[in-house]
């Protein structure tokens, strides 16, 4: 998707197993302003469905998900 997403904060969550990626993303999103985007890198395959589920629960917007080998890149915009 758009290369011009401006990322405010990057979380390196590689190697962490659930629930830690979601715990850290939940914390990380609160550290940026509404409208800003954070980037999270995970390696837990479970995060592929867990992070979107977390997005539905909280209303934060998963603007993009990319995969490169075993690393998953999430771009998440704080909405409220």
């Amino acid at each position, binding site marked *: 998707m758009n290369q011009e997403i401006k990322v405010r904060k990057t979380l390196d969550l590689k190697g962490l197993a659930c*629930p830690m990626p*979601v715990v850290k993303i939940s914390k990380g999103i609160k550290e940026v302003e509404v409208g800003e985007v954070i980037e999270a890198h995970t390696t837990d395959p479970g995060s592929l469905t867990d992070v979107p589920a*977390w997005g539905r*629960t909280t209303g934060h917007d998963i603007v993009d998900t990319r995969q490169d080998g075993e690393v998953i890149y999430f771009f998440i915009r704080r909405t409220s």
Partner: protein
Amino acid sequence: MALGSFTADDLFEWLTGQNDFLLLDVRNDVEFDRFKVEGPYPVDMVNVPYMEFIEMEDESVARVPQDKKVRIVCAKEGSSKYVGEILVNHGYTDVAHMKVGIKAWGNLLSPILLAKREGYQLYQFRRPGKASCSYGLVSGKEMMVFDPAKNFKFYLDFAKKNGCTITKTFETHRQADYISGSNMLRHSAAVEIVAPEDDFKEAKFPYTSARHGEIHRFGSDGPEVEIIHTPGHTPGSTCYLIDGKYLITGDTVFIQSIGRPDLGGMVEEWSQMLFQTMTDILLNLDPDTIILPGHYMEWDEADENLIFAATMGKIKEHNAEIYNIDDEKVFFDFIQANMRPQPEEYAKIREINAGLVEIDEEQQEIMDIGKNECAATMR
């Protein structure tokens, strides 16, 4: 009180023993909808995803009744521990989480003795996570396994406990819904794989072709295993008749419904084959033949001992809307009218089961999980 833990075997024991507990599944809603724990009796189960405990702790805790034992499952153990600790902190007194996670449930095999006769014992290995059955035939110091699941270590342990070694595995067909353990058993225990050539001709591992009418036997006085070709669910589909009484049918005959002939993308041809098999072979079986299916759809197909087995006579009666069809075209229309999409991973599983692709264990777990979709009709 501290958070406890339990195994998938414990869970199966509680479910079959009608123990009173709440099963709290904390996976996300998508995973939960795709695959959930089932047992022979109604399960008191609630899905509160762990991310809701992270975001709305008090509201989520309030959804868990306080007066029951709480048993928690998640994908891989971490989240169920996390939620368990929260519940313990909130004063819940009897809370435990499942070790390993849902995949342990998905891989669980539970043995039950089907028949003990002069010279042999026949076991059914129920796999509640897949709603499938594999079988073990023990005679003297040898064991033959039919349609092993990928939890091959279970079969090795089972053989060891019974003082025997696995000599052969038999494949009823090339499975699309689960990863077969035959090739794994060949690697670790040098078993001979017997499999129908029509399904396995491109296989990358050695196997003995299962030829219609041929008989396999143990030593000198063990029971006979007769090969009967029953194409339809797949072109190679084969049944194995043990001691002239017990018919291991794979995905050809089920207690409820019949094996769907549309998984290979050639529904018209395979449906014709299945109709032929039904009229030429299945309807001519001795009605007292005991059918041992590769799958069940629901637990209510099990008998009072929680065994999945029924006579061909009963099955014909129970599925009269299928077995009474005496016209190929009408049969095809019936199959078509009940067709539904197949899970997308089936194509890949089929390749894995011929040794055409190899994937790592984690991918295997993801692909192999979930209830089968092998019957022609739904309830």
